[in-house]
């Protein structure tokens, strides 16, 4: 039994909902609320919430305070009331009544929506089975825009040259060593210009591979480097294999 009761208590969505329930249950005229009776019943409900260990939301407590405040203001003697501001001449219940009526309107209309929703539950739809999306060529493009894009590319390319990534596999140092050796063997006097090693190379990874190949050959004592004076051409010699 208590479980069922708990469920019923919980069913109140908020203090206004609970108040409307009490008003209907007691057939109270919403425009002339006996505030003392209503407050008492409201507080009773909160007590029951606690007895069943239902967490009472702060909104319910704020409403309790509001009800008590209205009650005390009604109990004030008439002379004291008159001394107050003009606004206070208004019925202290007015604001609460306005809120209750506003809330009740939406509660009623939500019942109509509920019926509408139920009637729609008898209609069935189907999933879309649309053909795949097709992109048509864009329209009205300006050749200037294309031209500007290409300028961007060219500018980007200039600044990009410094940071171009080294691809390891494309140019191996091993291959470049063989290339340099064959260049030397096919040259007059087994001698070539340093710059000849790098001619026809226009990308960074290949340059690096060739340079490393040179260093490697020097280390292996296969070649020699000679420069007569500063800024003069650098020559590469093939060493005699002893």
């Amino acid at each position: 039994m208590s479980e069922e009761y708990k469920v019923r208590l919980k069913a109140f969505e908020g203090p206004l909902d609970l108040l409307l329930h009490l008003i209907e249950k007691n057939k109270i005229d919403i425009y002339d609320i006996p505030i003392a009776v209503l407050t008492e019943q409201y507080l009773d409900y909160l007590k029951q919430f606690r007895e069943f260990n239902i967490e009472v939301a702060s909104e319910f407590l704020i409403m309790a305070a509001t009800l008590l405040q209205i009650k005390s203001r009604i109990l004030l003697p008439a002379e004291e009331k008159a001394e107050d501001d003009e606004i206070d001449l208004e019925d202290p219940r007015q604001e609460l009544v306005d809120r209750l009526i506003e809330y009740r309107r939406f509660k009623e209309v939500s019942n109509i929506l509920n019926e509408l929703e139920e009637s729609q539950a008898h209609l069935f739809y189907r999933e879309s089975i649309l053909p795949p999306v097709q992109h048509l060529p864009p329209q009205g493009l300006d050749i200037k825009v294309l031209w500007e894009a290409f300028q961007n590319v060219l500018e980007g390319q200039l600044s990009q040259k410094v940071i171009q990534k080294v691809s390891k596999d494309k140019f191996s140092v091993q291959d470049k060593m063989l290339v340099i050796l064959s260049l030397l063997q096919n040259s007059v006097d087994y001698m070539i210009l340093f710059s000849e090693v790098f001619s026809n190379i226009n990308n960074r990874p290949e340059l690096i591979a060739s340079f490393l190949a040179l260093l490697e050959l020097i280390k292996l004592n296969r070649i020699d480097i000679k420069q007569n004076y500063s800024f003069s051409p650098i020559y590469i010699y093939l060493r005699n294999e002893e």
Partner: protein
Amino acid sequence: MFYEKLKAPLEAMLFVNGNPLPINQIIEILGIDKENVEMLVNELQDDMIKANRGLMIKKIADSYQMCTKPQVSGYLERLTEITDKKLSAPALETLSIIAFKQPITKQEIENIRGVRADSIINKLLERNLIQEVGRKKVVGRPILYGTTNIFLQCFGLSDLSDLPALPL
């Protein structure tokens, strides 16, 4: 009528497009003006009624959608697994407030219902029944909420003016 032969493409378009099909898209694809699209839809609807068909066309906002007639729902319920997606009373209340008072802020909803609305608003957003429609020009610029076309569809309304009158 010159566009009589457009009835078949219109029907097929509504068939493959499960969601509401905007009238503007129909105008563009069929190449006839709005008035004629409306006449064409009406004729198709009439045909469907006369021929005792199981389908019908519904107008939702500025879109049309094909669906089954309510009379045959009993058979369809046996065909599909119906997932109960009914809205709770608090969700319906909140949705009513948003429908009639849109655009409205969370705070304004909470003032009317007297309770916090965060989780219900999230639930309604998740089900695409409401959406953010802007920010109120007051301190804190709170989000304003309004209803969606899916809201209209769920409640069988063709537009917001179809909402029942607010009591009192």
